[in-house]
């Protein structure tokens, strides 16, 4: 039932006329996915999805749409004339053949989907020592994730913080007024001068 809700909202995301409606359906998709994750027992990632996507990114999209006044811009496939997709047939055929051959080989050669007996069988399970089985630990999901994130993966944590810093600085630099704050001379690329020397 929830899966049908998520998929239907996904269909509405890509087929909505107004971008604002599309963003609202995107919020519905993310809330449905967060409920999925809570139901599966992954509580921390579910809360992260709610906070980051619904609270930050969707509001960012809404602000940009209302800032730029883009609502009077019909999608390309409703204009009629621009829906000519016949020149995408070769690359679509190649990609479709690739994926279909992958699926068909998994069905015909390997013999259907993989059905696990236990977790990788009893004899292979000893080789996964780097895996921390978190259902065996007597922790909540959040507590176990905090332990593995701050102790084992602290380097990745610092790296993620640097990525966010770079993104913030990049967004600020990109949206500055070009020519007044950045500098008096905007560096431009003279293609004819470059190719003719």
């Amino acid at each position, binding site marked *: 039932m929830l*899966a049908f809700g998520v998929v239907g909202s996904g269909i509405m995301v890509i087929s909505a006329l107004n971008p604002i409606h599309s963003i609202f359906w995107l919020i519905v998709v993310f809330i449905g996915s967060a409920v999925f994750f809570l139901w599966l027992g992954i509580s*921390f990632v579910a809360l992260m999805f709610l906070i980051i996507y619904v609270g930050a990114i969707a509001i960012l999209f809404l602000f940009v749409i209302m800032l*730029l006044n883009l609502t009077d811009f019909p999608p390309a496939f409703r204009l009629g004339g621009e829906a000519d997709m016949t020149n*995408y047939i070769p690359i679509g055929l190649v990609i479709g053949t690739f994926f279909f051959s992958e699926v068909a080989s998994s069905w015909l050669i390997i013999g259907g989907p993989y059905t696990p007996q236990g977790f990788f069988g009893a004899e292979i399970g000893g080789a996964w020592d780097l*895996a921390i*089985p978190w259902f065996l630990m007597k922790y909540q999901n959040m507590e176990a994730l905090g332990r593995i994130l701050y102790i084992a993966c602290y380097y*990745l944590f610092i790296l993620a913080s640097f990525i966010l810093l770079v*993104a913030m600085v990049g967004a600020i630099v990109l949206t500055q*007024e070009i020519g007044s704050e950045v500098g008096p001379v905007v560096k431009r690329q003279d293609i004819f001068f470059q190719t003719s020397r």
Partner: protein
Amino acid sequence: MVYYKYIIVIVILLLLGGWGVVLNRGHFIIMIISIELILLAAFFLFLINSIEIDLLIEQVFTIMGLTIAAAESAIGLAIMVAYYRIRGTIILKSFSSLRG
């Protein structure tokens, strides 16, 4: 089996994202939204596999990917705002003038 039902939902979400990119060419915001949908499907796949094989490291990977996705959408929207300030429109057919 429940696992394959989740896989079906994930694959449908991912195909919807790709289809949205193809179908809404020329509409930049809906293309970014479709990319978010593809990323949601990818994280969903990671988390389902994390449940299935009892690894916690995939959830850490999902959080790192969430960071990358947030940074990516923020920079994409910043590029769009800068482009709109120069051009006055965001019709995607004239994006070839982005090379400077």
